[in-house]
Structure formats: structure tokens, C-alpha cells
């Protein structure tokens, strides 16, 4: 049935939605506090190796079983991501160096760091024949998963993390718009001097924003390694960190809009994995399909440039203290 293929593609897209959304959401908090973070890829990488380890460690070694084992594994990935992001935070907030440079360093070091951790945690990267590590039990969405015509496949066999990620939009939106914390965070990204003049500690909120981005990107990586692929392997992040950046920009740094773009790009990633035989798509070489998210972002940025409005002070070093 033709629908089955599409349905499976959709199911896969939910998975990649999760990855892109979590990472993108992390980037959102960082940028809205005023710190540009292009090191999302590197943060994810750190999350992958620690998450893969965590899943095994908590589930098998500590014998915590389902669901605590894998969940703690995800949290371990978040923790490592947050710690590593701390480097970016110190560099950009305390020492006020260029955000891009710091982000590049994060990406460069992450590869080596992950390799190093892989030796510390297990014995380096897995081979093809390794069995997958533990992961959360899959679930089917009631109702939707029994849709006829193969459509139901799209909603079955999903990791619960997909739902968690989707639901995150609620606390994210609420925190940004209805909590004092969110108001202050956003002020740091729009006009840090004004915030400072009112007693808001800009460095503190920026640290929080950056570490949060590390935690979310790390969790996303952990999800990728333990839930999706099952093993840790080098290079498995595949530029998803940069795709998340693209989704974030297109969404205008809005957590609700981000859901849409994260899913859209998740679908774009899923296409070459599943829909290669579909009519239009089979005519294109698979490599060109993988270009789609990037091309879409460029077109959007170039075409709708007036509409994309980042936090006004993002990227600008905040000089701290003093008047003017």
C-alpha cells in the first residue's frame, strides 16, 4: 500500500522532529538571552556519547530497568551537554569573546572530546554488529495508530520522548511569556543595558540560557544515540545541529513556530530514508534531497529577510556595569 511508505516516513519524521525541536529549543533559550550558539552540533555530539553510555549504565549496570534506566541515560546526556555548554557560557558571558568563535571551538573540541569519552565510557565506537543499547519501550498513540490504510503506522512504535518533546512547547512558551524568569531572560537578549539598569543580572540569565541550550541539545543527542540508533558511532549527528539552527531562524525564535519547522525539516531528513521510490523524489539523486532543509532556509532568509527578527542584542557583547 502506497500509504504505508508515507506513513513510515511520517513516523521517522516524528523522530527527527524530536531531535531538531529539542536542539532548536535549546538554541532558542540561548539566543533569546543574547548569546548566539552555533555550537549546537558539538553539544549534541557530547550528548550522544554520554547518552549512549548512560542508557546502558543505568539500565543494565545499575539494573534500574525500564523506564528509569533510559530516562536517566537521557538526563546524563543533558547533564554533559549543559556542562560542556558551560565552556561556551564562560567564554562568551564572562570573557565576552566573539560568540561565533566560541561556538566554532565547541564544535571542534566536541569531536575529540566525544571520542575521548567513548574510550572512557566503553571501548570506543560500536561496530555494525553490536546489538543496540537499551531504550524506552515504544508506544502507539491510541486512536491514531489504528487508522486504516497503513496510515496508522505513522503513529505507532514511537519513543515516548517524541511526546515529551512535543509537549515541551507548553512549559517553554509559558516560561518565556508568563514567568518573571522569561521576561528577564528576554530583556537580556533585547536590551541588556536596560535590564542591567533595572537590577537584572544579565550574566546570570545568560548563563542559564546557555546551559539550558546545552542540556536540551545534549538530551537531543542522547535521544539520537540511545533511542534512535541504539549505539554510539562517530559522526552520527549528521549536521542535525545545523539543521536545528536553520529551523530556529525560520521560526523567528518562537517555540510554537519552531514545532512546525522542526517537523518540516524532520520530514525532509526522513524522505531519503524511506521515500526514494516515490515519483518526483526518485528522479532526484539522494544527495540533493538531503540539501533540502538548507536550501529552504537560504531561500527563506533571502526572501523574507524583513520578517526574521532575532533578539536585538543577540551576539553583541554586553559591556556590563557602568552607564552609557
Amino acid at each position, binding site marked *: 500500500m502506497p500509504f504505508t511508505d508515507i506513513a513510515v516516513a511520517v513516523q521517522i519524521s516524528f523522530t527527527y522532529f524530536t531531535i531538531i525541536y529539542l536542539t532548536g529549543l535549546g538554541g532558542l533559550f540561548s539566543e533569546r538571552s543574547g548569546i548566539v550558539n552555533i555550537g549546537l552540533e558539538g553539544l549534541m555530539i557530547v550528548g550522544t556519547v554520554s547518552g549512549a553510555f548512560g542508557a546502558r549504565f543505568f539500565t543494565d549496570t545499575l539494573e534500574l530497568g525500564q523506564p528509569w534506566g533510559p530516562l536517566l541515560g537521557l538526563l546524563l546526556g543533558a547533564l554533559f551537554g549543559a556542562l560542556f555548554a558551560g565552556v561556551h557560557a564562560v567564554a562568551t558571558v564572562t570573557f565576552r569573546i566573539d560568540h561565533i568563535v566560541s561556538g566554532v571551538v565547541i564544535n571542534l573540541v566536541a569531536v575529540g572530546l566525544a571520542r575521548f569519552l567513548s574510550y572512557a565510557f566503553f571501548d570506543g565506537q560500536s561496530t555494525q554488529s553490536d546489538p543496540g543499547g537499551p531504550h524506552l519501550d515504544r508506544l502507539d498513540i491510541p486512536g491514531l495508530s489504528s487508522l486504516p490504510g497503513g496510515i496508522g503506522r505513522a503513529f505507532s512504535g514511537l519513543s515516548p520522548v517524541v511526546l515529551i518533546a512535543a509537549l515541551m512547547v507548553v512549559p517553554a512558551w509559558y516560561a518565556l511569556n508568563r514567568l*518573571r524568569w522569561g*521576561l528577564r531572560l528576554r530583556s537580556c537578549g*533585547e*536590551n541588556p543595558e*536596560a535590564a542591567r539598569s533595572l537590577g537584572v543580572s544579565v550574566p546570570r540569565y545568560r548563563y542559564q540560557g546557555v546551559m539550558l541550550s546545552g542540556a536540551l541539545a545534549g538530551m537531543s543527542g542522547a535521544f539520537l544515540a540511545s533511542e534512535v540508533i541504539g549505539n554510539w558511532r562517530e559522526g552520527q549527528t549528521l549536521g542535525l545541529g545545523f539543521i536545528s539552527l536553520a529551523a530556529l531562524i525560520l521560526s523567528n525564535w518562537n517555540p510554537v513556530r519552531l514545532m512546525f519547522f522542526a517537523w518540516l525539516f524532520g520530514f525532509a531528513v526522513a524522505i531519503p530514508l524511506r521515500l526514494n521510490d516515490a515519483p518526483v523524489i526518485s528522479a532526484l539523486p539522494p544527495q540533493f534531497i538531503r540539501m533540502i532543509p538548507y536550501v529552504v532556509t537560504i531561500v527563506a532568509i533571502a526572501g523574507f529577510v524583513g520578517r526574521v527578527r532575532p533578539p536585538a542584542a543577540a551576539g553583541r557583547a554586553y559591556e556590563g556595569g557602568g*552607564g552609557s
Partner: protein
Amino acid sequence: MSEGDGAGGKGSPPLVELEKITKRFPGVLANDEVSLELRAGEVHALIGENGAGKSTLMRVLYGIYPADGGTIRVRGKEAKIGSPRDAIGLGIGMVHQHFALVDPFTVTENVILGEEGGPVLDIEEASKKVAQLAEQYGFRVNPLAVVEELSVGEEQRVEILKALYRGVEILVLDEPTAVLTPAETKDLFGNLRKLREAGRTIVFISHKLDEVLEIADRITVLRRGSVVGETRPAETSKAKLAEMMVGRPVLFRLKKPHVQVGEPVLRVEDLAGEGKLNGITLEVRAGEILGVAGVEGNGQRELAEALIGLRKLDAGSIGLEGTGIVGRSVGEIRNLGVGYIPEDRHGQGLVLNMTLWENAVLGRQDDSEFSTRLGVLLIRKIKELTARLVGLFDVRTRSVDVNASTLSGGNQQKLILARELETDPKLLIAAQPTRGLDVGAIEFVWTQILEQKAAGRGILLISAELDEIYALSDRIVTLYEGRITGEFSPDAAPEQVGLGMLGGAREEVA
């Protein structure tokens, strides 16, 4: 007509005492043992030239800078003010020249930022409070409006509300009327009077002597970091205040050379663009200075930029000795003989990070005199040029190899002037040419401009300072909301010109 006679302030114990406050910056002694007293229920004006130390002193009071010496006492008790938070805690608030507002936030969000009253925001409650406060003192503001869309005057009200929301009793306003229209200034003064009646203290930093005489109860004059006098409006006059500020009788008028005015150098017709220019028509002739007077924000910047080619226009024509300018690039326009003294000398005049010689050649680096055809710079020649300019215009500097950022404002302006005049422009556009300069520098710049007139150039002078307009212009036009609203001779009474600046047509003047 002064207002402060006997009203408030007299007899009440000092609310704030600044005792022998000293503050140093690299190379500058900004405050030299300054002592000042503020009382409840008064408007206290702090006047002085740029660099006199007025803002600095208040920033020390507000906790932005730590004092290097002296003590502050609030309500009789010594106070350590290490940050604005401390100051606000003591009831002291400050509204700066450049507002500290978050544009995409609403008025309410801006007011409560930092003082939200709990981890969860209750915007409704806060908006009510803001509205109440505004009503109490006669401010017209919509708590739910987004700041980005407010006018400058409204933004200032938000800033004041921020302070009042936090219960400040002493409100410092730093050059508040610099950005307001005369109507908004009237509103502001009304608000200030209400605040005074309520027992608040206002510190009014300004260099606009007319306004100071109108609203203040007491006036303290600073000069070069020290207090030179304290007085009341009833006991002084504009001339006396000016003399105290500067230390010598100020020449408000220089001798204008008599020059035979020639053909029109510049003809502007129906210039319109981007909403800020709404049909400007004017003419400048050789050997003539046309003064364009107006409150900032009425299209001055846009006019200047349009004339030099930095701005796109929707309609109209600009003719330089007959040659059309609209649509040409900045380089072409300059080559046709236009010089430009921008109002923003950092944003459009100098590259602060580059050396003096690099700045001196800006715009002329293509000349065969300064670079070869292949693009190699002839640095020695450029430095010779710079040395000559620096000497001619008395730019105080160690060498031509230092960065432009090390020059003072006055010297920076001199450098720009030297550079622009070097090309012998037929038309010189001078926008707010003496803003931020001290009297010595102002005199220098005015003299230079008059010399250019004597040399037969056409000069378009755009200025918000009527003194300057009167001192230099042969003809005066007023600019209001992007249109020319009146033409006057320099013999016209300032009130008439002022009316033009407010949009009143010549016919309305009695």
C-alpha cells in the same frame, strides 16, 4: 518668567547632600569636590557646558559610578550607593538621555521589569497600577502599547513611570527636553509641576537656559568639574547664567562677513521620501549660508542624508549647479563638489578604530595623489596631507598615527571639517556641526564656516540650536514634519522663527 519663587524647597531640611564628590576618568577630572543639596518639593536645575560634569555627578548619585572621594547623605544618613538598585532603594531614580527601554515589550512589561512582584507575572494587575500612577501625575500613556511604536515623548513618560513605580522621591532627568517637541516639553513641565506639588524632588540637568529659568526653583552651575555658583531664577538672567557656565561673557554673535551672493549652488524641489520628507523646496546660493532651523526629528537628518546620497527618495529633485543629484552614488555626489559634516560624527564621519591619516583621506583614497592605479596606497603623501590639516585646524594630538578615538569631540569635529573643506566643495552641508562641543570649539567651527562663506561657497546649515542659526545664517527657513514652514531673515524675532519650527506659517505671525 520664573516659577520657583518661594514655592517649595525653602526652609525644608535637605533630602540629599552631596559633599565634596570627586570623580576621575582616564585623563579627566570630571567632578572636583562638588557639593550640592537637594530638598523635598523642589525642581533643582543643574546646568553647565558639555564636560562640566553634570551627568557624571548624577551618575555617581545614582550608583552607576563609584565616587573617588566625598560622601553622600540621604535623609541625614550617610549612604553607600554601589548600584542603581541601591539608589532606587533610597528613593533616587534617573532618566537618562538615551532611554533604557526594551522595544518589543509593552509599557507595562518595561515598567515592571526587575520589580515584577513574584515569579509568575500578573500583567493585568500591573497594568492597572501603571494606569493609576500615570493618571495621578497627568501622564497620558497606554499600558499595553508596545514601546517600539511609541513616540519619543511617550517613551520618556514610560521612563519616568518606571521610576515612580519604584517609589522614587528624587527624580533626576538628564537633558530631558533635548528630544521633545515644544508641545511635549509643555506637557513634561506640567507633569513636573504636579510631581513637585506632591513633594517630589526633581533634578533637571540641562543646558537650555530658557527652560531652566522657567521651571527651576534653584539653579546650580557647574564648570569644568566644579560648582561655580548657586542661584534662583529671580536673582539671575540668561546672560549671567551663560557667563557663569563659561567663565567669560559669551559672544552670541560673530561678525558676519559681507559677501556678494552669487548664483544658486543648490536647488531642491519637492523632495519627498520615506515619510520623513514631505515636499521640501529650498535654494542655497554661492556665498550664502542658509540656516534650516527645527526641533530634531522633523526630517533634518533625512534631508542631509538625501543631499549627500545616503538616502533613497520617493520624489523630488536636487540640482547642484544645474546637475541632477538624485539617484547618484555618494562618491559621484562628492566628486561633483559636495562636502558633508554629519550630525553623527561617529556613525557617519570618522572611523574611530582607524588612525587620523586613514580618516583624513576617507573619500579621497581613489585620488591619483593618494593611491596608484593598481590600488597601492601612497601613505607618505597621505600623512603629509594629514599633518597639514592637523596643523591648520589646530587638532590637538600627539601624532597622526593615533586612532581617531583618542581625540576629543571638538578635535574630531575639526578633523572632519578639515577633511571636508580640503576638497573645495561648492556646497557644504553642515548638520548640527557644533553639537557636543565646548565654547572654544564652537567658536572655531563657526569661524571656519563663515570663512567658507566668504570664499564663495554655498552652505546649508541644519541646526536645532537657534543661537547657531542666528549667528551664522543669511537666510533662515524652518523645518517641521518634513516641510519648510517659513522663511525668515536673521532680523526676525526668535518667537517668529520658533513658531515656524512648530509648524505655524508666516501668515500667522502678527
